[in-house]
């Protein structure tokens, strides 16, 4: 029974729901402040994402005439839930809300599900901007899915010592045994590849070709207002937290003895990953064109991922 309560508490509070929501809002806020500071301006208050989401909740929801109303309103809810459930799988130290022995594949599919709900929602909104936006989102998905899978295979293969594992618990145990994987030079290209994948997966500035305000008027979210928009914005924030959490789980899983230190290290490393992978590109480069994103991911990033896969394969 205690085990049951323990796992329910795990889900509800710590690595689960409450922690995810707070962490994702703070992480998104810190990201915006860092980008602002890099442009030498003061930047919004750290809780700005919370205000954005609350304000959107308060606004009126307009369902356009050409939209398919049920799918239009349901898609954001499914997207948010799928991303929140993904966050359940991420371990802090070695404690994670839900534990299966094939976490990575579930995470991969739930992230795909989140992108698919974004696509189906925008398809249902019946606006031409959304049509173009969803095709760009699909191209982005095709481009980052390949390197993401290769990195997961590499890490799974390294930590499996023999039989490849997809479970984050085993990866955590392996890293606890012989140091976080980031120190292992063979895996540096894989880490770089994952760092490149994160901004495109989340839809952050240089790669947010699906919600490009200037080109296609908020593309995918052109017709969204009010509560569905709040859910999509919240999904964007939680995805940012999930992807940096995934990087920490795969490469930076430092497990000290007691839990509080783990949490602190986890938060600091999440902020660091967000800074390196999302804030710096946002402040430094402009938005990519559609086929540039595709060409960039399938040549440079896949090259890095393949390099480390081959190195690991040869048995280094």
């Amino acid at each position, binding site marked *: 029974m205690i085990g049951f309560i323990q796992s329910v508490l795990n889900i509800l509070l710590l690595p689960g729901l409450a922690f995810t929501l707070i962490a994702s809002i703070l992480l998104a806020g810190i990201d915006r402040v860092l980008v602002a500071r*890099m442009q030498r301006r003061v930047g919004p208050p750290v809780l700005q994402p919370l205000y954005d989401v609350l304000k959107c909740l308060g606004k009126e929801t307009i369902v356009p005439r050409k939209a398919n109303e049920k799918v239009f309103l349901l898609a954001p809810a499914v997207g948010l839930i799928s991303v929140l459930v993904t966050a359940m799988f991420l371990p802090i130290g070695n404690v994670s809300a839900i534990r299966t022995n094939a976490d990575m594949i579930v995470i991969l599919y739930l992230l795909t599900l989140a992108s698919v709900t974004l696509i189906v929602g925008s398809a249902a909104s019946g606006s031409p901007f959304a049509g173009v936006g969803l095709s760009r989102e699909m191209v982005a998905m095709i481009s980052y899915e390949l390197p993401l899978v290769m990195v997961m295979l590499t890490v799974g293969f390294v930590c499996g010592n023999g039989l490849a594992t997809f479970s984050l618990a085993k990866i955590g145990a392996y890293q606890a045994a012989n140091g976080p994987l980031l120190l292992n030079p063979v895996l540096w290209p894989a880490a770089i590849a994952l760092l490149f994948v994160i901004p495109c997966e989340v839809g952050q500035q240089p790669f947010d070709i699906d919600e490009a305000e200037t080109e296609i008027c908020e593309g995918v979210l052109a017709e969204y207002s009010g509560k569905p928009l709040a859910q999509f914005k919240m999904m964007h924030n939680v995805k940012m937290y999930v992807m940096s959490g995934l990087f920490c789980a795969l490469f930076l899983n430092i497990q000290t003895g007691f839990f509080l230190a783990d949490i602190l290290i986890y938060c600091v490393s999440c902020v660091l990953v967000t800074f390196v992978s999302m804030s710096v590109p946002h402040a430094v480069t402009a938005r990519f064109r559609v086929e540039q994103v595709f060409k960039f991911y399938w040549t440079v990033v896949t090259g890095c991922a393949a390099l480390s896969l081959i190195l690991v394969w040869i048995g280094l």
Partner: protein
Amino acid sequence: MAKIPYLGTALTNLFRKPVTIDFPAGEAPKAQPNYRGRIAFDGTKCINCGMCERVCAPSCMTRVAKPLEGGEPGDQEITFTFDMTSCTFCGMCADFCAKKAITLTDDYMMTGTQPEDFLVVGKVIKKAPPKPKFTPEQLAAMKAAAEAKKKAAEAAKAAAEGK
């Protein structure tokens, strides 16, 4: 990889003070010298010649003349209203005002919700011109007397030359 542009400056900016002015919290910074902002109208200098109204492109100024209550019958109280929302702040009125009654201050904070917030109103008191000492009839009479005297003088001079 090609050198990523601005990466160096971006990272060093992190540790430098942001350049943002703390305006909504602090007070607004002063505008540059001789900035053409809100119009200031000095009613005492104005002689109501109307040059500013003629020269104003968006015709943002209206003049209303009303007889002054307390003054003598001929006095006028002219109210100038400058509508800031239709002014282009070109400063033509200030240049052409002979008496330099209109000046453009450097107050640029012109926001408001009602139209009244944008009106600059000035009053000009115009004294009636002094009443002439003689009424027109008296003038006619005086003129007629002057003619008569001149004619009498010429008649006398003609008589004198005749002698």
